[in-house]
Every structure is written in C-alpha cells, then in structure tokens.
C-alpha cells in the first residue's frame, strides 16, 4: 500500500474540498492516521471503499476518544481490505464535546459492521451519528442519562450500597478518583433518617 502522504494526496484529489491531514501514531506502531473534517468524511470513506487501489471493504474497528483538553471527541475508524489484504487506513473525525453539537456522519451505510460499534460510541461517548439506522444505547440501559466513557464522567453512587469490611480501601481507591465515598453517603442517609 502507498505511503500515507500519497494516500492523503489521492483522497484530497478524489474528494475536492476535503480537509485531510496526517496524524502520526506512536512511532513504533507506524499507523499514521488521516484526520478528515466532518463534512467530507463520508465521501472520503466511500472513496477508500470503492477505489480499486484501496478497496477498503472491511471496517474493522470503530471507537471514540475523548479529548477534554481540546474540547473535542474523536471517532476513529480502522479500515482494512480483504480483497487486497492490506491496511489499515485509520480515519479520524473530530466533533465538539457539547452533546448537541457532538455529531458526525454515520458510516453504517457504507459498512454494515459499523452499526453496533457506532451505537456503542454513541452510548459511551455521546457522539450522534447522522444517518445511522437506529441509534440507540446498546450497552447501557435506555433510561441511562450520561455517557460513561467521557473523561469527566463521575459515577453516581446511587446503587444500594451495602457495607463491606474493606471500606477503607474502597474509600482510598475512590478518593484517588475524587468520588464521594459510599460510606459518607450512607452516613448522610442515616443522619437523614434520624
């Protein structure tokens, strides 16, 4: 398969107006990615799927990454080609973190394999995929409000907690995550009862 620069060039030729830039991976992994803007990612993906030089017919892995520092959520697609037995081409799309604006086009119409994985990304990261056939929560239950894989997610302590002999460890473990220890909650409830 061609070098990443060549791929970028071909992609930006094929899809005029697509803002494609190269993101380097870990040096040893040597899997540089293409960061594509939201508007054009579908076209770029379609190009990679249908262009005979790439024939990326297998979308292996879809996932989200949360970057609170830059206030963005990233969706990563790993494309492989079964026909030509090469890959991967890593596509990255970024969307702002605000839940209402956090939406990217769904690639499920291109690769059916994205269906569940995009649902998972939506469930855990709150990324809305436009054009997804049925975008529902898949791992968390439907009534669940938050998106647990976001970095700023604080697990609620609302499950009925029962005392274990090892609260100290539990509290110390959770103190490191800045979470209210359940003992405190229980104490508060006791106080309320009294």
């Amino acid at each position, binding site marked *: 398969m061609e070098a990443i620069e060549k791929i970028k060039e071909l992609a930006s030729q094929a899809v005029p107006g697509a803002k494609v830039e190269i993101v380097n991976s870990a040096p040893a992994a040597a899997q540089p990615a293409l960061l594509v803007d939201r508007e054009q990612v579908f076209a770029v993906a379609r190009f990679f799927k249908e262009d005979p030089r790439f024939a990326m017919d297998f979308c292996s892995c879809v996932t989200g990454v949360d970057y609170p520092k830059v206030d963005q959520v990233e969706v990563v697609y790993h494309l492989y080609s079964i026909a030509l037995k090469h890959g991967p081409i890593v596509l990255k799309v970024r969307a702002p973190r605000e839940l209402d604006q956090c939406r990217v086009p769904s690639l499920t119409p291109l690769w059916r394999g994205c269906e569940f994985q995009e649902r998972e990304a939506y469930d855990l990261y709150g990324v809305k995929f436009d054009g997804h056939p049925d975008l529902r929560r898949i791992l968390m239950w439907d009534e669940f409000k938050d998106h647990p894989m976001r970095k700023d997610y604080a697990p609620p302590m609302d499950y009925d907690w029962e*005392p*274990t*002999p*090892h609260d*100290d*460890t*539990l509290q*110390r*473990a959770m103190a490191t995550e800045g979470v209210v220890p359940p003992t405190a909650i229980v104490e508060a409830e006791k106080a309320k009862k009294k």
Partner: protein
Amino acid sequence: MGFLGKGLLEGMAVTARNFVGSYFDKERLVTVQYPEERVEVPENSRTFPFLVYDGTADKMRCVACKICETECPPQCIYIVMERDEKGKPLQRPKVFDIDISVCMQCQICVEVCPFEAIKMDNDYEKSQYGRFDELVEHLPDLLKSNEYYHKVKPSEATIVDAKLKADAEKKAKKAAPAAKPAAAAAPIPAAAPAARIVIPEDAPFNPEQRAWLSGFLSSLSPGVAPAAAAPQVASTAPATAPAEAPAGGWPWHDPGLGMAQRMDLAKTASFADKLMAAMAQTDCHACGYDCRGYADAIAGGAEADLSLCLPGEAETQRKLEELMKEAGKL
C-alpha cells in the same frame, strides 16, 4: 455412501462404546469424586496471596513498602506501616488486609514485590459462611512460614532462598569495612522492636559517632542479613546501581530514624544527600530506584516526580518539595 440413517447408527455405536468403556477405561470415566479423591495441584497453581516469614512470625519479610497495594489492580490490599510511639516507621506492617472477595488471584502483587515477601498460596478451600469479615484475611491469617512456602512451591522456594542468600552475601561483603555498618545493617524489618537500638538524642555524641554506634550495635542484632539483603533482590526494574557510599557511610540511611533525625544528620551533607535523607531509607525500589538512586535522579533532574517514595508517604514528598524549593528547583 451410506443409506439414510447410517449416521444415526454410527452415533449410537459411539455412545455405546463410551457406555461400555466407562466401566473399563479411565479415559472414558473422567469424573473426580471431589471430597474423597482430589487431583494434585500443580506447583504453579495460584489461589490467594500470603506473607512469608523466616523462622518466627515476627521476622516477616514484608517491610510495608506498599508497592503491592498500589499495583494491585482491584485494590484489595490495605497496608498500614507500623510506627513506634515517636512516629518512626518500623519497617513492618501494622495492618495488612487482603479482601479475598475482591482479590482476583492475578499474582501481580507477587511479581512486583522486591522482597520476596508475598507469595501465592494454592489452597483452594477458602469457602466461608459469610460474605463480609469472613472473607478478609488479616495479618495473622496471612503470615505463613518459609517452610510452608517450601511445601506448596518447592522448586520456586528453593530458587528464592538461593537468591536471597546470594544477595545477603553480596550485601555483607559490601558492608565488610566496619566503617559503615549502618548502610548494611540499616533496614531491620525482621528484627523485633526490642532488638532495635537507637542512640538517644541527648547522648553526648556527634552525629558521626552516633551513626557509627547505632550502626555497630544494630549490626549485632540477629536476623539482619536476609532482610537487609532483600532490597537488592529481584529489583524487577533495573535500578541504578547504588553509588558507593562515602567513607563515613550515610549515617541517615537507617529506616529506624525519624525524619527529623535524618535531616539533622544530613544537614551538613550535599543536596543529593539531603534528598536521600528525606527518603524512607528502605531501598524498597517502589520508586524504581533505591534511595540513593532516586535522590541522585531527582538532583540530576532525571526524575521529576517527587511522589514516588511509597514508604515515606506524604511526609517524604513534603520534605522533598520543601528541599527542592529551597534549592530553587521547583
């Protein structure tokens, strides 16, 4: 090519063979009737951790360095280091709890322990009538003798013993010149508090004499060698080789001393020595170095993280920051 139903009859032949075979062939009757007959457990088999001690139960190898506590993935270990009335760390756990209802038997605590102090048991009959206190193992339950360790894991235990012995000899050789026994005899995790000799503050000695005396006296106390050797054992991280001690030794390199005393001993010493004196002096490699190496790394700017000294806890970190501030490096 068979007729319709051939496959069915073949299958029945197979089951018939198994039925008959179950009366003659052990291969075809594999059930082990558990309480009466048991399969013997392979040596590598692991269930829950226990703490090893040499000889008597107070000579435990654990120095409460908290490495296992920090590394334990499910956070099921809870350690409190024992301190004497003056608040000096005594290099022994006061509390060592393992919640075996949380423990997932991953053996990481064993791998990270630099003292060969915590090992995996293979006793799988731990069921209890209860989900709470019954499932927490406290220090007395956890302490098992080295002989027991030999019993459950013979070959591994022999290797460990050999390693400990070799390191002890190495350490002893290094500590041979009586000039600086303190460095050698310093960490006395195994020794009982009674065996610990500390020169009182008001005794008429200058620091060097006091250090020499305390080192000399404590070197007389029994059960020192293996424990003192332990810090070098299996430092899983390739630690920076400890710099050769100056002729006077590092008088503060004695975990028996409190922070104030150590800093007092080191007040004339160099910046790196001051940093070292702020450490807990256990050479536990929790930070990835021994105390000397960590101090040098910080002084040399190779290590920026001041929170790595687990046994020293917050005290050491505060002191280190203070020192760095004084030196204007922070």
